[in-house]
């Protein structure tokens, strides 16, 4: 270690250490949001001479203010969006005053970019919501307030912008303030400061404007400098998601992480909620020496006095106030993926430092962000917000998001694209007993199979006696079962012992045999099962009749293709010998024809394909056809 790094710290001047406020700005393309932020940067003297020179030059060439300083140019970064004239992503801006450093999440207000606003709000202590004084409180203003409230922001500035364009009329300002107040309360914004201002002209931005003598409140920047914003996370119960187990040698085993909430001291009794194991905090280790206490926000390394099982993903808590664990959660989801949320599809869920596998079992509601009304819904598409029931493959420790932002939020990750497809807010744990909350849903074929996380299908194995149909069908069923799929195998021989005991081998009886089996398979498919039928079924017409009973795409003909010589050579049941000897009449391949399929969905040439390889092929085909996930529902199904 460098001697310099160990040298004693000099006491820094007091003004070097400031407080930090993170806020989000919300407004539409035309509310003058970029201009206001640019103005804050400019007026708080964050801009240096060369940047101002660049701003002047750009204002003349591409500015929208007729050559005057266009502050929006300071914040509209990417050339694509400059060309479109709108901001299309979350940008982070920084400025500071004597008291505070500010991190501004600048997000666009356009409807299709809900995800950006939610992203920006997730780390914000406060929201600045812009309203154009000429337009008043719009639907989108309500939407912005709802979104930041949903993400747990409790304080907002209602920035009534462009007051210069309404002649600084106090009646206009008061009307907007009054219109917003009841809505703000409804979405959980408990503290709102309305400020009349002009980002373009600078009124009430950094100092009270002489043009609004009727307004007695603070200007924007002084308010942001002094507001007590955000909930104090140290007042919440202690939560410590373990990021990394630090084991430099056998003598040290520490758990590195950032205190999510609360505080901890050596000697505190802690618990691992996953296992219920308890121990005592021995040390709070940092590079700068051990601490007597660690509080929310600090990144430290804890050591415990006992050798208990702790690994990444565990959340340490005080034994007296440990969080719940559950493997079924009800959550609010803000969907961000290109593909809508698919019931029964498996996603990665990351909460704290824990990543588990999760499926949505049901969507219980979708919220209309314009009216705040919740409706029953069948799907959740990009930028939509809804409530869903999630089933996890193992329990996680969590708090309700309303209680703790740091341990109640999660993300969902698509397992194929690796994209982050949703932000989630835990509402509550679900017990096994109150699993199912189907709302306004008929229990139909789709509902039944959705519950099983698959789509109905019939694999119709056809081929000569001894071709290997039952062998392969058995292996396929085993494989599907192992994958957690719901299946049933109908085998010709077995069915003839029961259901079709009364049938012989005449042409009519053979046709009836197939009809009955096809009908049973249809009922089973309707129940949501993947049905495997292993029947010689030699005639095309009969197979066609069976196919006709199913929904298009459900019936998959599997031709187990073994040449007669090979099947006869194997003759595992000795039937060919008997048929050749004339002891069995109408035996397929000997004295009754076999009509091979002309266009089977799956072709299994057994001479060149081992049974295990055939299983791979068939399962892959099911996967490809979407049979191993819940059915996609049509748009028109949405209520």
């Amino acid at each position, binding site marked *: *270690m*460098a*001697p*310099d*790094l160990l040298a004693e*710290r000099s006491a820094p001047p007091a003004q*070097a*250490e*400031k*407080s*930090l406020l993170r806020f989000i700005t919300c407004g539409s393309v035309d509310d003058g949001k970029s201009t206001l932020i640019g103005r804050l940067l400019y007026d708080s003297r964050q801009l*240096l*001479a*060369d*940047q101002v020179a*660049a701003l002047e030059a750009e204002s003349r060439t591409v500015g929208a203010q007729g050559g005057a300083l266009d502050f929006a140019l300071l*914040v509209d*970064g*990417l*050339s*694509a969006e400059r060309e479109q004239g709108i901001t299309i992503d*979350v940008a*982070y801006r*920084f400025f*500071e005053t004597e*008291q*505070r*450093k500010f991190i501004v999440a*600048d997000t666009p207000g356009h409807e299709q970019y809900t995800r*950006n606003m939610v*992203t920006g709000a*997730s*780390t914000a202590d406060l929201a600045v919501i812009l309203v154009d004084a000429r337009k008043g409180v719009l639907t989108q203003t309500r939407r912005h307030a709802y979104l930041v409230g949903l993400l747990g922001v409790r304080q907002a500035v209602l920035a009534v912008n462009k007051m210069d364009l309404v002649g600084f009329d106090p009646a206009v300002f008061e009307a907007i303030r009054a219109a917003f107040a009841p809505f703000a309360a409804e979405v959980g914004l408990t503290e709102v*400061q309305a400020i009349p201002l002009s980002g373009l002209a600078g009124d009430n931005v950094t100092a009270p404007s002489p043009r609004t003598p009727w307004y007695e*409140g*603070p200007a924007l920047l002084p308010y942001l400098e*002094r*507001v*007590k914003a955000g909930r104090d996370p140290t007042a919440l119960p202690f939560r410590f998601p373990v*990021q990394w187990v630090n*084991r430099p040698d056998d003598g*040290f085993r*520490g758990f*590195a992480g*950032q205190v999510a909430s609360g505080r901890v001291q050596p000697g505190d009794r802690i618990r691992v909620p996953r296992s219920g194991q308890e121990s005592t905090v021995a040390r709070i*280790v940092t590079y700068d020496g051990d601490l007597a206490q660690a*509080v*929310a*926000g*600090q*990144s430290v*390394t804890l050591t415990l006095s006992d050798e208990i099982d702790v690994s990444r993903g565990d959340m340490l808590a005080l034994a007296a106030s440990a969080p719940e664990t559950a493997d079924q959660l009800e959550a609010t989801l803000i969907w961000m993926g290109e593909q809508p949320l698919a019931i029964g599809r498996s996603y*990665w869920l990351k909460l704290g*430092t824990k990543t588990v596998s999760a499926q949505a079992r049901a969507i219980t509601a979708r919220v209309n962000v314009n009216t705040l009304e919740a409706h029953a819904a069948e799907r959740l598409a990009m930028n939509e917000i809804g409530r869903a029931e999630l089933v996890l493959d193992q329990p996680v420790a969590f708090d309700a998001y309303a209680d703790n*932002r740091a341990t109640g939020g999660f*993300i969902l*990750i698509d397992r194929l694209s*690796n994209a*982050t497809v949703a*932000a989630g807010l835990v509402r509550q744990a679900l017990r096994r007993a109150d699993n199912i909350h189907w709302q306004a849903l008929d229990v139909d074929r789709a509902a039944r199979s959705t519950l099983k996380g698959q789509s109905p299908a019939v694999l119709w194995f056809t081929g000569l006696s001894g071709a290997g149909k039952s062998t392969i069908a058995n292996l396929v069923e085993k494989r599907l079962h192992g994958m957690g799929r719901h299946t049933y195998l109908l085998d010709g021989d077995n069915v003839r012992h029961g259901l079709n005991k009364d049938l012989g081998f005449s042409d009519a009886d053979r046709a009836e045999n197939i009809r009955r089996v096809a009908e049973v398979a249809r009922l089973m498919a309707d129940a949501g099962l993947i049905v495997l039928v292993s029947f010689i079924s030699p005639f095309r017409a009969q197979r066609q009749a069976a196919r006709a009973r199913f929904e298009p795409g459900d019936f998959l003909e599997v031709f187990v293709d073994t040449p007669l010589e090979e099947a006869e050579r194997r003759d595992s049941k000795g039937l060919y010998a008997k048929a050749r000897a004339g002891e069995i009449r109408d035996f397929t391949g000997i004295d009754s024809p076999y009509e091979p399929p002309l266009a089977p969905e799956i072709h299994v040439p057994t001479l060149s394909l081992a049974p295990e390889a055939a299983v791979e092929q068939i399962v892959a085909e099911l996967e490809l056809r979407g049979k191993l996930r819940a059915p996609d529902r049509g748009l028109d199904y949405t209520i």
Partner: protein
Amino acid sequence: MWDGTDQTEARLACDSPRLTHLDRLEAESLHILREVVAECERPVMLYSIGKDSAVMLHLAMKAFYPAKPPFPLLHIASGWDFRAMLEHRDRMARELGLDILVHSNTEAAAAGVNPFDTPLTEYMRLMLTEALKAGLHRYGFTAAFGGGRRDEEKSRAKERIFSFRSAQHRWDPKTQRPELWNLYNARLHKGESLRVFPLSNWTEMDVWRYIRRERIPLPELYFARPRPVVQREGQLIVVDDDRLPLRPGETPVTRTVRFRTLGDYPLTGAMPSTAETVDEIIAEMLTSDRSERQGRVIDRDAAGSMERKKQEGYF
């Protein structure tokens, strides 16, 4: 709850008790460093020897203490680095007991690519961008820490902390993953990689204040000293060795200058200054009227150029 008089109480209520903005920035960076180590297969820290790298390295020492950072450092050397930078690099590696890998585009250098005769954009592409890609590829690194900050340049303001790169190392602003709370998605397909910026939310002033607070060692180039300089196109270029071809009429003169950023010496402008200590630098910055990148020849390009460079894979 606004109260124009009660500032102290407001400060305390806003943040966790005792945590200043530097404390919070530090804690966030440690969290990021640890997430990458926990989730990524082969991380590396790009070490460019400048002040941001110095801070990043210091944070890495903290994040994994008492263990050493569980990843190597990688320096992309162009061959035109200041000598004092290389000395500082080797000293840090020795004192901290860390592995520092050095990678250069030796082929391009052998082919005569240099900062004087090669067009500047091509020089940058070959000696920095391509060398970086080759260096990452050579060791199979899947995640690389960089010292980039969002306050540096407009296109950086929208960069994610975990910035996703295609197998061709390209940055597509449209496919970046949303970053919510402190939950980062580090999942990759084969061939893809991440650039991770633990200093995303730091400003230049934060970096200097932290250097002062933590007494982080820096190359002496940051401090004002008498140095031999020539003036070129408005930039003060320090004659760091005898490879700098002097133009007709150019005679190096000794001036007291320092650097605000470090890079290849023929391409990095110095500024006249008398700031010999970190305190003096901070004092000078508070009255400065020029931004940090102003001294970089590479950045005095048309607006949007940084975005283009990033899409090609520039860090």
